[in-house]
């Protein structure tokens, strides 16, 4: 009787008591201890993956930079690895050109889609259009590349004279289309999380829907919108197959979108598929290029996370 009372007084943590008792039963007790260890190992794999990526890129890049000067690499304007010229600037400008064209296509279209879906469309329309738009994000990039080469480029040739079979314009536009759903969907989420009371307040003051969208919702959802754009741009930087297929393989220091260019990603593919032997300078150069690419996208991703954390409006 006294013991029962004591138990009731110690009622604080029945679960712990039961668990203590359980642990005495050896088999299940061991399992209870082994499982977290196993799960921890699973979680460790993702950390090891990051470590592996850093290690791989660093080690091979360092080997590369022991034969090629790092200054020449980042300031050189000629990229022709098979004749020994390793100046990465043409690849960087190629990547920037594609990213710029993609951003010009995707940011306005994505934002306007997001405003339409969040501020104008009825619930039913949104429920149909949003998933359909997201289908665009699920289409394999090799399909986009095929489409850019066989449809968009011939189409653009009618409008833009002097357009090559491989050109930055067509690839950039298609990369832009590919990242529209990212911007539209994530921005729409951000705008959707702006509380309705703000909208109703503005509407009650006589604002039109447009004014509500532009002066109330957009500023309130700003951090989410910017984060989505940065994330999408980072995706454009890392996009590979579309540029490999549609933009060609001529590393040129140019901002002329009608010409063929080569991006960082496209060179990695070219360098890895050619008759590149393990241990050759070209083999190591793809890691130096990969490290450059990795730093670009990592900075963008961290910027996106920083923006959405730092400037988040809480309601």
């Amino acid at each position, binding site marked *: 009787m006294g013991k029962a009372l004591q138990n009731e007084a110690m009622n604080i943590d029945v679960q712990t008591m*039961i668990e203590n008792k359980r642990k005495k039963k050896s088999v299940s007790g061991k399992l209870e201890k082994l499982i977290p260890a*196993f799960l921890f190992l699973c979680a460790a794999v993702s950390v090891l993956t990051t470590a592996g990526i850093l290690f*791989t890129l660093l080690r091979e890049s360092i080997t590369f930079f022991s034969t090629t000067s790092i200054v020449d690499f980042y300031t050189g304007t000629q990229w022709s690895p098979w004749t020994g010229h390793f100046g990465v600037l043409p690849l960087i400008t190629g990547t920037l050109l594609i990213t710029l064209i993609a951003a010009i296509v995707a940011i306005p*279209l994505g934002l*306007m889609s997001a405003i339409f879906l969040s501020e104008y469309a009825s619930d039913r329309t949104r429920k149909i259009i949003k998933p359909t738009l997201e289908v*665009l994000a699920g289409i394999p990039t090799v399909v986009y590349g095929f489409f850019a080469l*066989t449809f968009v480029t011939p189409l653009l040739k009618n409008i833009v004279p002097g357009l090559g079979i491989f050109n930055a314009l067509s690839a950039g536009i298609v990369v832009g289309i590919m990242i529209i759903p990212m911007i539209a969907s994530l921005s729409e989420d951000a705008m959707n999380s702006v509380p309705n009371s703000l909208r109703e307040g503005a509407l009650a003051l006589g604002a*039109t829907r447009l004014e509500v969208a532009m002066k109330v919702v957009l500023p309130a959802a700003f951090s989410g919108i910017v984060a989505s754009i940065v994330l999408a741009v980072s995706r454009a930087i890392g996009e590979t197959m579309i540029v490999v297929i549609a933009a060609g393989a001529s590393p040129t220091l140019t901002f002329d979108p009608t010409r063929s260019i080569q991006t960082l990603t496209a060179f990695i593919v070219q360098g*890895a598929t050619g008759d590149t032997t393990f241990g050759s300078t070209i083999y190591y150069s793809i890691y130096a290029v990969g490290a450059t690419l990795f730093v670009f996208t990592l900075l963008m991703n961290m910027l996106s996370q920083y923006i959405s954390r730092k400037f988040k409006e809480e309601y």
Partner: protein
Amino acid sequence: MSGIDEKNNLKRIRGRVILNNVLKGLFFVSTTIGLIFLALLLYRILTQGIGYLNSDFITSFPAPYPEEAGIFAGLIGSIMMIAIVAPVAITLGVGTAIFLEEYAYKNRWTKFIQINIQNLAGVPSIVYGLLGLTFFVYMLRLGYTLLAGGLTMALLVLPVIVVAAQEAIRSVPSDIKEASYGMGASKWQTIRRVILPAAIPGILTGTILALSRAIGETAPLIIVGAATALYTLPDSLLSKYTVMPIQIFNWTGRPQEEWQFVAAAGILVLLIVLLFMNAVAVFIRNKFQKRY
């Protein structure tokens, strides 16, 4: 004396209303551009590829002539690849999610792992290819094999699965968890018998979507050495292999126009597989998702 100039006000309001309507139209048109592009893409590929898409195409190996080429090696290769990716990525992904949601203390290390996973999701797929090339192909001496490709892909989709599984586990209400503890169940028993069954629809949906990404991915597999033309099926984990996107890429690169039709037919097969997987994901979500 009236302070309100009604006429002027009406004029100004009309201007604002017109602007609102004009931009509403513009926003709508912008939204449809993405949709039109999607429709064009599907229509174009359908009309180009349908002529070459027949049972011979699905059961034939690559050939030097467009009429005889087929996607059999790629199709089987993709399926075998998923057979490697799925068990590895699901075990690691769900394990990580359970660890982070149920076991890990909310401290700096857990936060570090979390941020790390977020960043991994943003790493370009081709960088995973480089990781696979150094680590699986050369360091573990797997060579250009199915296993090396599969493991690379498993790492690629891992962050997506972790995030999906975490969300699914988090959305299991704590009531039923506490009810299980209250009945005397241990932590692992609760996870295995209460939390996981409740979270499985969400986990499966996210996993299938992640795997469908793996099926469509090309770039990392080029780096880790998937073959472009293969006349036999892989017979072990250490065989050479090819997958559908690689075959499509290879056909796309050929100059003669007929190969475009072959590529389009290959894309159709790929899209049908993806459509099927997505349909399964949607079905699972609608069928089994419980609302608490």
